[in-house]
Each structure stands twice: as C-alpha cells, then as structure tokens.
C-alpha cells in the first residue's frame, strides 16, 4: 500500500488573549489509499483542528510548529500542504484531492441556494465540466447516496430535507469531485441511531466503490469499531495510542483508551458498573506537564509521569502507545 497522506510532527497552537493555546502537539500519522482511519477523542483533544490542518483551513491565529509537515501524494507528485499559499494552489486540497463532511449539515449548506446549485458550483470550480455535465453528475451522485427522486431533490433547499437526507446530500456533494481523501468530522453525531446506521453503511459502500482514504472523526468508539481499519486515540492534542481497530479495542494499551472503553455502557452486560475516568479534562490553558494524561491516570507510576513526556513505543509493528508503563518494559 502506498501512503496517500503523511502527517509528520504536526503541532498547532492558537494565539488567544490568554496566551498561546496548544491544540495539536507533535502528531504523526499516515493514511493509505482506501484506508479508513478513525480519530477518537473527547472535546478539546484537537481532532477537528488536526483535520482542518489537512486542508489548511485553520483560523488566522493558528501557529504551526516549525517541524510540522503534511505531505499529500497526488498523481503529479507530493504536495506539501502547509507550504501552499495562494488560493489557486490551495484548491488542490480544498475540494480537489480532499473533501470534508461536517457534523451539522444544516449549517454547511447555504440556506438560500438550492442543493443542486451548490453541487454544480463546486463541480465547475474543480473540474472542466460544462454546467449540463455537472448537473447530470450531481443528480447521479444524489441517486448513488440513496436519495429518492434525486431530480426533484436537486432543486430543493436544505430546509426541505430531513436530517438524514441532508447528511446524504452533503456526502454526495463531497464525493462528487472524486476526492482522494474524505474527512468526515462527526458525520453521524447529530443523527438518530437508525439513520446513523444507514449513513455508516453508505460510507462503507463508498470506500469500496471509490477506493478513497477516509479520516473518520468521532467520540463514539462503537462507530469506529464499525467503520475504521485503524484508529488513533487523542487526548489533549497528542496521539496516545494508534493501531489496527481490532487490536486497540480488544487489547488497549494506554490507560486512557482502557478508561474510555470501561466508561462505555455495554449492552451484553447490564450489571457491569459504569466506570468513569476520574477527574475532568484539564483546561487547555493549564496543560499538564509530562504525560498529559497523568492528572487523571489510575495507573500513574510516579514522578516520571509528571515530569517526562512518554515517547511512542511499538508494542507490535502496527500498534504504538505513548505511556511510561510500556517504555519501562523491555521490548
């Protein structure tokens, strides 16, 4: 497998009135063609900021660390995303090779322009299609994502569609430009469970058909288990564990991943007590020293966790964890 996108030492800070806030801290990962990577974490873990960086979409007050690198492999060779400057160059990553689906489809569609006009507009921007061709392709994509009567929906407005329908239209729009990488930021969080199940199925079909890479951002480990090939768990801007989805869910190594799994209500054992992860997520302005998780960690070893940042340890060739419990054990 060849890498589609490589992220190396990505660090992002935001300049705010209260000082520099670290949102993403030395994050590295790569995604292959046709691979689905889940990015899990709680609020404030920097999931969305990481995803936005791939399209160079972060706000003006974002400061990228000097070693940060994002390399997108295209047919015309590698592109360094963070070095792109002009709006024309940025088109490669914004809607060209990379598309994004957001959590709130109502907020992502312009309310006063029909769904169809919005789809046609972006197709004409990113390809040499004529208006008629763009129209035909848009209706075809609407049909492909399971929207009934696509020709009629094409000329409707976002408010006329139900929540599930809107999210399908959003997906149709995102994949109509044939992106190499699709970023899905909590695409099912605002949906009802029965609709969520339909959208998950649809996304799985699309991966098979279009063979694109997907970054699936969610806080729901169940959704990850159902969709992803590999998963990266984030806490306060750092990836604390990454590996194949089966490994991470069945054999979690980081105390945070273990805590997240234990906190989930399980349906096969209703008597099992719910075990919360102790404490609260620290404010981004009060970033803990050493291991960022040490303030809540039930397995804290001692001063080493408070003072020293754990580096990545490969527990096996595809599974890495950043925790002092594992650095001490000889490989």
């Amino acid at each position, binding site marked *: 497998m060849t890498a589609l996108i490589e992220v190396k030492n990505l660090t992002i800070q935001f300049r705010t009135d209260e000082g520099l806030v670290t949102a993403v801290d030395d994050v590295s990962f790569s995604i292959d063609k046709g691979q689905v990577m889940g990015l899990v974490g709680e609020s404030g873990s920097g999931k969305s900021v990481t995803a936005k960086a791939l399209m160079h979409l972060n706000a003006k007050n974002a400061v990228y660390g000097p070693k940060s690198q994002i390399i997108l492999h295209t047919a015309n060779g590698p592109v360094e995303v963070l070095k792109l400057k002009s709006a024309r160059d940025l088109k490669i990553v914004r809607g060209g090779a990379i598309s994004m689906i957001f959590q709130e489809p109502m907020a992502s569609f312009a309310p006063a322009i029909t769904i169809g006009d919005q789809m046609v507009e972006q197709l004409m921007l990113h390809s040499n299609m004529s208006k008629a061709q763009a129209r035909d392709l848009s209706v075809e994509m609407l049909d492909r994502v399971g929207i009934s009567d696509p020709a009629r929906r094409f000329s409707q407005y976002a408010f006329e569609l139900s929540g599930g329908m809107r999210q399908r239209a959003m997906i149709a729009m995102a994949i109509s430009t044939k992106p190499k990488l699709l970023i899905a930021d909590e695409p099912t969080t605002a949906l009802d469970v029965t609709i969520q199940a*339909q959208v998950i199925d649809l996304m799985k079909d699309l991966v098979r058909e279009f063979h694109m890479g997907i970054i699936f951002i969610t806080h729901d480990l169940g959704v990850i288990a159902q969709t992803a090939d590999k998963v990266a768990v984030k806490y306060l801007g750092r990836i604390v564990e990454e590996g194949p989805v089966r490994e991470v869910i069945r054999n979690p190594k980081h105390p945070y991943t273990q805590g997240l799994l234990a906190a989930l209500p399980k349906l096969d054992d*209703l008597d099992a007590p719910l075990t919360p992860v102790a404490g609260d997520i620290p404010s981004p302005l009060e970033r803990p020293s050493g291991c960022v998780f040490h303030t809540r960690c039930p397995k804290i070893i001692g001063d080493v966790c408070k003072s020293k940042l754990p580096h990545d340890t490969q527990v096996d060739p595809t599974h890495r964890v950043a925790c002092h419990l594992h650095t001490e054990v000889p490989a």
Partner: protein
Amino acid sequence: MSETLIKARDLSVGFKIGSGFFGKSILKAVDHVDIDIEKGSFFGLVGESGSGKTTLGRALLKAVPITGGSAHYTDGEVDYDLTTLAGPELKDYRKRAQLIFQDPYAALSPRMTVRDIIAEPLEVMGLTKTREETDARVRQIAAKCRLNLEHLRRFPHAFSGGQRQRISIARALVSGPKFVVADESVAALDVSIQADVLNLLKELQRDLKITFLFISHDLSVVAHTCDHLAVMYLGRLVESAPTREVFKAPRHPYTKALFSAIPSLDPDDRGRAQKLEGEIPSPTNQPSGCKFHTRCPFAIDICKKDEPKLEHPGDGHEVACHRWRELADTLAA
C-alpha cells in the same frame, strides 16, 4: 408495595400550527399515552427526534398545556390532577417536580456565581427565610452533588462540562423535589464524564428517594441506568416494560430495530444488524393505522388500516403491535 407517583391515561398534547385559509391544523406531539411511573423508580423514555419524548416530559411537569386525557401526581402528601392544577397548588407542584436540562453550557447564567445559581430556586419559591438558611441548603446539596464548596463563589465559565452538569443537577434538586425529569442530561457530555454523572444521578435517586424520568435517545445509557423503559414513536407509546425484559425480548419491531442500530463495539460484528429503512415521518403528516408501518419489516394489511392499542398482557410488558404474539420468537432471537 409499589406506589404510583405519576399516572397518565390517554394523555395528549397538541400544538396548533399555521392558521391558514383552510383553518387550523393540530400537531399531535403526544398522542393518547398511558404511563405509570412508580415511586422511587428510574424510568427511561427513549425514541428518536420527533417522537414526543421531550413534550411528554414537559407535560408531566406542567410546562406545556395538556390537551387531552388525564394525569395525576400522588406522593403521599398531596394528590394533584395535572390537567387542572393552578394557583398555589401549581406553585407547590413546582417544588415537587423539577427538570434537568440537556446542555449545561446554555442552562447556567454566565453572570451569576455558582452559589447564586443554586440558591435562586430557594429564593424564588420562598423556601428559606434567612441568608444563612439558604447558604446551608446550598452547601448541603452542593456536597451531595460532589461539588467543591470552594467553587461556589466562582462563575460557570470556569467549569468543565461535567462540573457544569453537576451544578445544574444541584439547582434542580435544591428545592427537594420528589419527581425529576432529566431530559438528555448526559447527551452533551464526553464519554469519560458521562459515566460519572450517571452514577451521581443513581446515587441521588437512592439517597434522596427521588423518582427520575430519564429521557434519552441513547439506549445503551438507558439500559444501564433505568429500571423501567418506555419507547415512543411519533407521539405514541409503543412498548413499556422493566428494562431487562425489553432487552431480553423486545416485543415491538421498532424497539428491536433501535437495539440493532446501536453500533457494536466488536469490529468483527459488522453489518449483521437488521437495518431500518427510511426515516421517521413528519408529525404533521402521519401515516394511517400503525404509525410505524411505513418502516416496519413485518407490516401486513391490517397495520395500514387499524392503529394497534397498547396491550397489557398481565406480565407487565406492554406493547402496541398487531403481530407481537406471532413475532415474539423472531424478535427475541
């Protein structure tokens, strides 16, 4: 042994929408619902958006007008008919029945200290006479909700989601209510915090003898916290039974579909679930017969014509489905 705290029969809540040329139309958000909430229970109410679960909760708090049927509140001290409750009795009911909101970021005034937020209901209802008495009550409930007493002087912005939710719980409980409606009270919280708030609610139910109506769209959360579970679809109650019963052997195809739709944590268990087609119909344009027949994999002719009544088979497991007896084995599998 068990007493009923809330008893509703044929309860309906309708909203008038649009008064156009052809007269007014009525949106039936809650449609002829029978519900019995036992004293001291943790009663779960689930359903998708638009099923009327929030409206039912508010009707029982008398926060929206009840337009049909009956509803009674009986706690041993008082006996209120919720359809006619007014004046001083309604004021008294406000002390006995309270609501915890979904979003702890929107529910707390940013300009009041935590102490003032929690104390406000006491002052408004005139439950305490002196400031010392108010402070004592605030401290007592704050400690019960595991809030740091030193934080009472701070403003809400200084707190995380979990702490904020504990503050809104304290505010709801400070008047000493017997009945509390928790509407999606953990939905906005992170997983690691959610479990903590759920455990707290259970603890309060036991220690303070509070009856909870827990409204949620998340079946796995409900399964872990509630003793009794009721499922709503388009304003109708379709199934109601002890939680374990419902999980072991759901009787309504909709309940079964809801269970199947929960994403399994087992990566090898992909796509086995029975998937539901389509979406919940608009409440202004409801299907005839059984409201669920447009999405039901088991629908037959009668389902399109006759609306099934909620049956009480005697084992405490109520269901509104024409075919529940013949489907029992299929759905339990």
